[in-house]
């Protein structure tokens, strides 16, 4: 399990890897802030169009994907089961929301 005698260069390599990952995370953070800004701007400046609601939703979904894949490391190895369960939950969530936005008002 734990590699008890870790050579120095290995540790160095891992640090580098972590740094690389951190860089990606900062980038995704910047993008998330950007998406948020766009979303708020669309609404605040009353850019009225047919597409505003779908756009808002897409912005939110992309942002959430960044959270999940970068911040929560779902892109990394060993996340098959977490992904399965999150997608399972998301599928049920989707059905639920569709129901409550449509047939509840028969």
């Amino acid at each position: 399990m734990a590699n008890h005698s870790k050579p120095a260069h290995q540790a160095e390599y891992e640090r580098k890897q972590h740094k690389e990952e951190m860089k990606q995370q900062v980038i995704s953070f910047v993008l998330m802030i950007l998406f948020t800004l766009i979303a708020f701007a669309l609404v605040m400046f009353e850019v009225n169009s047919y597409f505003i609601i779908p756009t808002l939703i897409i912005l939110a979904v992309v942002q959430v994907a960044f959270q999940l894949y970068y911040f929560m490391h779902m892109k990394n190895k060993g996340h098959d089961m977490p992904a399965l369960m999150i997608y399972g939950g998301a599928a049920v969530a989707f059905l639920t929301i569709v129901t409550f936005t449509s047939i509840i008002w028969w």
Partner: protein
Amino acid sequence: MSHEDVLNPKHMPHDPEKATLEGKNKFLGFWFFLGGETVLFASLFGTYIALNGSTQGENTPEHLFGLELVFLMTMFLLTSSLTSVYAMYHMKNHDFGKMQTWLAITVLLGLAFLGCEIYEFYHYIHEYGFTFQSSAFGSAFYTLLSFHGGHVLFGLLWIVTLMVRNQKRGLNLYNAPKFYIASLYWHFIDVVWVFIFTVVYLMGKVG
């Protein structure tokens, strides 16, 4: 792996949060729990959307919501997500001190968020007389928001407990998974908030 190894490892592995079986179990179990939470919040969102228009003719979303505060809250929470990522970054580099620092910043941002939320509720109740009981919309709004706010509060208590408890003993293979899943929880709270500001506030304003 002996207890001695878990509590005072001579060398920290690459992924300290997943180095022990207990850690792996916690990690996976917590993700599964988040899968369930997804459905929980979906049910709340569904209810909110269904009752969106049931305002009894007053205090409609358009009328109530101000986006400035919401924007501020969003920034607090999104940033706190980044700071908790920094904390985990330092955990992986086995730098306990920096991890604690970043966690502390995360906690402060979380508190700022909660403060804004409490102010917002106070404002609605006292300025508009818009309460949990005034209409089905009111019930749905406060329920959804408070479930999220309750998660924030719980997350804060959790992280603070972990920080205080482990202040003296530093990072080890026993507490690393605990820190890690607390940060997962924190990110999930952020995910929910993204949908809240989109569905409740922005779409509410658009009408």
